[in-house]
């Protein structure tokens, strides 16, 4: 029997803020059914850019549910920057402590918060749009697709060897077979016309102007292109981005992600000194 504090028990039995906010400003899903821990967090800001409401849905043990409840209580009224400073220890402390073995439950809350803020700052909500196919090992359709493409896999057995998917109960074998068929039927990745360097530079500039700047500016931030060397895009962060601790996350998960999607999958974004 775990030694839970009264506060943990209380938040487990009477969790605050259960549910989902419609049209949230930020949303994140972390964990998976297979891990035994999963959390969906949504939040909405008020006109002063403070978190007006936060709600959660959690699959997990008592401490996972209590940690989610505590997290939503803690971040209400904070700006997203303040919320990002909330650590998993803060969540555990709010609950009067968690057993050592259960600290990962508070980490899950922290991860959800970070991801929801990323989402608010422009990362796509269902990053990867991934769906778990193999529930035994928590393998998503995206992971399976990628393994098939990159390794030219043709059979279910191959997929299991590369990803573990299908190695448990076998309930997903049909779904995996369908993914194999679907990927086989895809046109090869190289069908995009090869870009000349100049075309690529122009496309990168256009993409940043059209797709990236507007959402960065919403947060009072910006990026400038310093140089483009082959597939390396060197940028400098400006405004709020220049002082934001999460700027590197924004660059990787948002700027680079969009450029890879819209221009070329080989692009990397690097920050250079300001």
């Amino acid at each position, binding site marked *: 029997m775990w030694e839970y504090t009264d506060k943990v028990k209380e938040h487990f039995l009477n969790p605050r803020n259960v549910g989902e906010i419609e049209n949230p400003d930020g949303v994140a899903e972390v964990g998976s059914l297979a891990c*035994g821990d999963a959390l969906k967090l949504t939040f909405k800001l008020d006109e002063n850019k403070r978190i007006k409401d936060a709600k959660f*849905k959690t699959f997990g*043990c008592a401490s996972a549910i209590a940690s989610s409840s505590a997290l939503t209580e803690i971040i209400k009224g904070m700006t997203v920057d303040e919320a990002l400073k909330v650590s998993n220890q803060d969540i555990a402390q709010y609950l009067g402590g968690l057993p050592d073995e259960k600290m990962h439950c508070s980490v899950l809350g922290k991860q959800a918060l970070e991801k929801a803020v990323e989402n608010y700052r422009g990362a796509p909500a269902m990053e990867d749009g991934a769906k778990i196919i193999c529930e035994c090992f928590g393998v998503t359709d995206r992971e399976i697709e990628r393994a098939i493409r990159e390794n030219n896999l043709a059979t279910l057995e191959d997929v299991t060897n590369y990803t573990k998917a299908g190695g448990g109960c076998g309930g997903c074998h049909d779904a995996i077979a369908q993914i194999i068929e679907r990927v086989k039927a895809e046109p090869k990745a190289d069908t995009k016309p090869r870009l000349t360097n100049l075309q690529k530079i122009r496309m990168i500039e256009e993409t940043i102007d059209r797709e990236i700047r507007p959402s960065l500016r919403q947060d009072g931030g910006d990026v400038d292109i310093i140089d483009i060397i082959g597939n390396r895009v060197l940028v400098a962060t400006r405004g709020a981005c220049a002082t934001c601790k999460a700027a590197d996350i924004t660059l990787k998960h948002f700027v680079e992600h969009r450029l890879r999607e819209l221009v070329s999958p080989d692009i990397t974004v690097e920050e250079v000194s300001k």
Partner: protein
Amino acid sequence: MKPVYFDNNATTQVAAEVLDVMLPYFLEFYGNPSSMHTFGGQVGQKIRLAREQVALLLGALPEEIVFTSCGTESDNSAIRSALTTRPEKRHIVISRVEHPAIRALCSHLSLQGYKITELPVDKNGNLDLENLEKNLTPDTAIVSLMWGNNETGVLFPVEAAARMAHEKGILFHTDAVQATGKIPINMKNNVIDMLSISGHKLHAPKGIGVLYVRRGTKFSPFLIGGHQEKERRGGTENTPGIIGLGKACELAAQNMDKENSSVNRLRDKLERELLKKIPQSRVNGDIQNRLPNTTNISFEYVEGEAILLMMNELGICASSGSACTSGSLQPSHVLRAMGVPFTMAHGSIRFSLSVYNTEEEVDFVIEKMPAIIERLREMSPFWKESGQACRKQ
């Protein structure tokens, strides 16, 4: 509040009759049965009686009963004895669903160079005897398979497995900790060499166990010390425990019919009603071939520890195979061996009844469980999604 105790595979209430016969051996007859004086020696007679009571329940000879401290000690003694008496053999066959007393010992032994084969089970938790036969080699010292599984209640065909092992000159041990007192066992009708029992699973106290060792089986003691138990287990006898276990075995023989009729009926009612009232729930383990008191039910998309704690608020006691209850990151090794999807394994609850449970208790649990599962499912981010997904199929 008196708990509704549906966790009898974890441990059981000491029977009042058992406690009664034990009590005089603390304050009054506390003598050492090995002493020369009558004060101690008279306790020895009571131990003899207890040995006969245990033997009677098992259809064994009194001399085949060795008292130990627990099921784990019995399991360890059996495996170690087989390896010591057959030093040239380095192979052990067990199953993937054995109790940690066997599995952990075997992984320890594998570090010392022993080869361990863990036989798989099918999706219902059943063992394939043909596969057992294929895995018996001239190097195999012992086969150890549990009689009844503690998590699912599934029964292994241990009597047939023992014959198979014997044909190849291999020793056979069974962990009958869960089976003893719940299903009839008659050692006269089988060739099993060693069998483990734990007192506290059949209404005797904790801290007392038995290793049955068939007459003529070479045995090497695990605990080396005095001459107790005919030099098969050193250490001063736990006299109140032994005397209590004797009584518990007598009661178990008397209750065997009840166990297989009324306890069985209550278990079936509980299971049937929960499956009926709670969507997306299912039984883990073969529903025919199992102990009469155990049911292991998975409630999809909710997590076991959370279910248990909500039940706890209502005074209902049970167990779970979820990862969170074990402190490890993976759900029960038994459910994984059966290929139960993690989504189901995390939400598994084991209810194990005893002759002390009542129809009212079963009705109470049937009444309360649906709301608990529904409440947790409402909190679960997977629930709505999967409900829709299921309708589509």
